[in-house]
């Protein structure tokens, strides 16, 4: 039984949780939300001679009219479209490892290896590999195909960079998939095999349904990775080029702030990117919630 306490102590107990969360809340407010508000506020001011003076929606209108910013947003859309491929690759490879293809132990460690390399190193390696007079084009030349300007052709460069990004990061997703496989009920697969299911049928009807939650998780993390950590690769591999074809909002923001001395315009672009990420993030949370409800 609880003994009745004096009222001051009750008050203290009621306040305790607030006091305990106060440091976290203060840090988030002071170091996250307040700068965010400052940044949004800053995006409504001008640059250069107009520094500090309010210009209303001027920066946002300029962004809307800037073909480069539109390209960067379109590239975000492209990344979203390429997401299934980026998820399918580690998924398939993990399946093969799970099904114990010959040499699966070697593959398991080899596939993870690129994940420990920094984007700058990966970028530098592929710059050499994919150079116009690089080894890949020499190889193509040997089999009779013409050289491809992997990083110099505006129609190809973005796919090249995404491909390299997937190569560099799919190891992590592979590990998540393998973890998912370890929870898979192998008797189901055995039963399918006994019933004469082909490889494709067992993947489609047994493996994928059992791994729904893992797949959704990988979707979300891959998406975040693609949208937030491509800067290093872009910086090293294409500098946003050729013809601005590989710009992403992050790179655009960096370019306007650091190279063209337009911090307010960069703030406006950051705000737009923030809204895009907010929408994507909320969609992902909904997706995860729905996945959680199924169980």
């Amino acid at each position: 039984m609880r003994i009745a306490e004096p009222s001051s102590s009750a008050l203290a107990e009621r306040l305790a949780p607030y006091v305990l969360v106060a440091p976290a809340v203060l840090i988030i407010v002071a170091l996250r939300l307040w700068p965010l508000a400052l940044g949004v506020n800053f995006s409504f001011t001008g640059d250069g001679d107009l520094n500090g003076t309010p210009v209303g929606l001027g920066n946002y209108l300029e962004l809307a009219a800037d073909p480069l910013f539109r390209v960067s947003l379109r590239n975000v859309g492209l990344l979203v479209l390429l997401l299934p491929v980026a998820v399918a690759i580690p998924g398939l490879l993990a399946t093969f490892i799970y099904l114990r293809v010959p040499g699966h132990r070697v593959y398991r460690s080899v596939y993870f290896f690129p994940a420990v390399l920094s984007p700058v190193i990966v970028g530098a390696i592929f710059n050499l590999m994919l150079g116009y007079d690089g080894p890949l084009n020499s190889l193509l030349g040997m089999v009779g195909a013409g050289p491809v300007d992997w990083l110099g052709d505006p129609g190809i460069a973005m796919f090249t960079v995404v491909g390299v990004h997937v190569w560099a990061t799919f190891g992590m997703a592979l590990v998540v998939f393998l973890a998912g496989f370890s929870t898979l009920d192998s008797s189901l697969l055995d039963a399918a095999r006994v019933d004469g299911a082909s490889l494709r049928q067992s993947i489609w009807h047994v493996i994928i349904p059992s791994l729904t939650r893992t797949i959704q998780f990988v979707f979300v993390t891959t998406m975040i990775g693609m949208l937030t950590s491509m800067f290093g690769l872009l910086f090293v591999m294409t500098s946003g080029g050729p013809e601005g074809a590989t710009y992403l909002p992050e790179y655009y923001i960096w370019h306007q702030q650091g190279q063209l001395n337009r911090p307010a315009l960069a703030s406006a672009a950051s705000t737009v990117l923030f809204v895009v990420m907010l929408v994507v993030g909320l969609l992902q949370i909904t997706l995860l919630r729905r996945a959680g409800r199924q169980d």
Partner: protein
Amino acid sequence: MQQRTLWSALMAVALTVAGCGSATRTESPSGQASQPQQKLLVWDWKSGEAAAATYIEQAKADFAKRHPDVTVEFVAQPFDQYYTLLGTAIQTGKGPDVMLFNGGGQIRDRADALLPLDSYVAQDKSRLAGWDAFSKDGKIYAAPVTLQGHPIYYNKALYERAGLDPAAPPKTWSEFVSGCAAVKKATGAACFALGNKEGFGIQFFLSGLGSGVLTPEEYDDWIAGKRDWNSPGVKRIFELWKDVGDKGLNNDGANSTAMFSDVFRVFETGKAAHIIGLMSDIGHWNDFKEFLPPDKIGVMPAPVVTDGAVPSLPYDGGIGYAVAKWTKAPELAADLVRSLTSTGALTAFYGKAGAIVSDTTVDVSQAGPAVAAITAQIETGKPALHVALSSKTLDVMGRLSQQLLSGSTTVDKALEQLAASDRKG
């Protein structure tokens, strides 16, 4: 219970204080009556390099002679982040007292954060060259350290193998192109080493060849800000850029070859006969000598494309030190800038880094024919065409130049966009 509340409150306060405390900066003491130790903070991207070490030492010693009680701290920032960091400093109005700048757009865009130096550097005006790149609206904002320009270097060894006279480089564009054909036939080397991945190639091309296309009047008008993007001369330069690409005179994959520093390797290793390079302090004769002996590197004036053009060496102040408006000791800071451009310091910079420095009294007679050819042209040289453009226009020009090479835009359309961007300034 009460005690728990108290403890958590204390924790909260402690955490907040610790969080904020580390961010506050102890103000440097201002030079008042008691005269405590004064300190000048310098930002640049050079002082960390081994080649610049003696230069910085000399400048520091020169400064210490006059101001023994002032400490000078050099902070070398990574160049690719330099202007980003500087932008943040300018935004907050706090940061270094003295800072390094590239001439041209980079400093002009930020001139309102800088102190005009005219009264401080009056004595150095005739000794140093390259002031224009650090001036805006008639005021000087930095003192030049090096001269940066775009000489056309050529590989004399390739010329010999093609049966051309390395001592008499082509004077006109048609001679130049036929010479290139001979080199290609004899050695397989391309005419130009071009790296346009970052879109810098067009800037070098415009400035390197511009004096062979525009008449002296057109050239001077361009520099003075009276730029007619529809004039036949300007159009010719961009047509030339496209032609050179279309006719295969560049190395393969120019749009994916980085200017820094893949393209310089292309030239050094004899895969191309010419390169429009730099004077200081990378991509220049001293850099090439790793593979090309100095006597095999030639420097030629721009080939004449249109009659009436008078080729001249395009150069400007390369890098220079400026003083921030917010500094508490403007005179001291300006004096440090003077030490950084003293003859002693600049001689050391030339000696160690091979930089063509702004000081015209430095003796360069030991450095070989390429340097002799460059320094001989400084007297008659003119500011480079691209340096007169804003960084925004240069950015647009970079992308358009890539489109011209790949064929996804036309010269007329490109010039239209450039004119629009240039008008906005």
